[in-house]
């Protein structure tokens, strides 16, 4: 099994704080990894480095054997925790935008997913509710045939029905040739879709393991383990 992502001793410091302090993590092809930690633990920092929009202070991170750059951006599909679509866009413009820039984008799949999410291609991005925006972003990100999907809080601020749709979309569109990292602090809703979990605390990975093994070794759910680590 080959590692799609390898991070070794990854550090990122800002003027007044250290967001990552030697995080080491690997993700194999075909696996879904849950990166779990409370706010400010360094989850987003880690993902931003992998997405190529933040640069580590020291340590290394390789995706498909390459440092983050133009190549890795072409095989990484990143769902940020921000509202990054242009305000002038209609949903179909956003689809076209992704089609124009990513050669692995599957337009048919995008429209099928829009239908599944009950989004109208003609409505404007500005007018969407928080939950609908999240669904749209996820549609765009999952419609790529990427090697690595990076989803930052895909369930954040979304009502339970939308949550279910989002989970379905993730499971349906995941292929064994790709890998996925998902961050969340809503562990309970999503723990059953993780192959692996990694707990991150104060910029360090404090525990990484196979979700099923952790369950049987500790006789606890991942959610309970999470509460125990971060109480």
């Amino acid at each position: 099994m080959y590692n799609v992502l390898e991070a070794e001793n990854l550090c990122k410091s800002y003027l007044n704080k250290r967001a990552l302090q030697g995080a080491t993590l690997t993700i194999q092809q075909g696996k879904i990894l849950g990166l779990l930690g409370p706010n400010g633990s360094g989850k987003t920092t880690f993902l931003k480095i992998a997405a190529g929009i933040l640069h580590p202070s020291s340590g290394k991170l390789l995706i498909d054997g390459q440092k983050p750059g133009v190549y890795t951006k072409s095989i990484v599909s990143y769902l940020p925790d921000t509202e990054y679509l242009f305000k002038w866009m209609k949903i179909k413009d956003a689809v076209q935008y992704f089609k124009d820039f990513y050669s692995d984008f599957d337009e048919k799949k995008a429209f099928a997913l829009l239908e599944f999410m009950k989004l109208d291609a003609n409505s404007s991005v500005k007018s969407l509710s928080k939950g609908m925006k999240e669904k749209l972003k996820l549609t765009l990100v999952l419609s790529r045939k990427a090697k690595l999907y990076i989803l930052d809080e895909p369930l954040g601020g979304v009502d339970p029905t939308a949550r279910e749709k989002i989970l379905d979309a993730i499971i349906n569109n995941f292929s064994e040739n790709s890998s996925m990292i998902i961050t969340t602090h809503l562990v309970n809703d999503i723990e059953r879709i993780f192959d692996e979990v990694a707990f991150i605390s104060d910029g360090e990975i404090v525990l990484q393991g196979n979700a099923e093994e952790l369950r049987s070794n500790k006789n606890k759910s991942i959610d309970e383990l999470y509460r125990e680590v971060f109480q």
Partner: protein
Amino acid sequence: MFHLIKYELRGKLLTILGICLTVIIGNLFLMTKVDSWQIGAPVLSGFLGGGALVVICIASLTLMSDYLYDDQGYLLFTLPQSGVSIMASRLITAVIQISIVMTVSVSMFCLLDQGRLLNAILQQVEIHELLYFILMHLWTVVSTLTFMYFCMVVGRIALKGNKVGKIGSFIIFFLLSIARTGLSVAIANLFPQMVQIHSVTTMTMNVGSMIFDIVTFGILFMATSYLLEHKVDL
């Protein structure tokens, strides 16, 4: 890169249309006053054109700052695009939108004064001089914007805080401008060779500072592209 330019222009469409419409309506209004205001009408039309140019130039700066300081950066900087194509697309977009506004302003002015000024100019200078003049202006736009984009990016990287970064960029711009002008003048003094652009008129330029300008443009362009790709943290 074509796509980058397309989406930048699409994003600025309302700004460009707004400015052009203002210029057109303003000039149409002035045309009704040509008889009563005499020379006042073309002068005001000139001001209107100048104002439009300033606005579109400021809008061109946001082609960079929007992505450095707003969430849209997440869209642009996660695209599999090199720093060079991001940088080049910004400059080309700026040139296109400035050219559109310029063309509209100049055409409206010419309509307003019924081509009198244009005729006067065409009698004095030759076509290729006019062309050179236009090219020089484009060059000024491109090199100035490159310089300003560079300062913005350096300010963003050096000072991460939002407002501090913007003020910092301005200070960097201010200091570097002084340094650049000083160097340019010094070089012009050291190498006083001039070329004459045209045989009859006295349009000349200094070879030394011309080379200096081109070299600084090249360096700043590559440096900004590099920083955009490798150093900007969102």
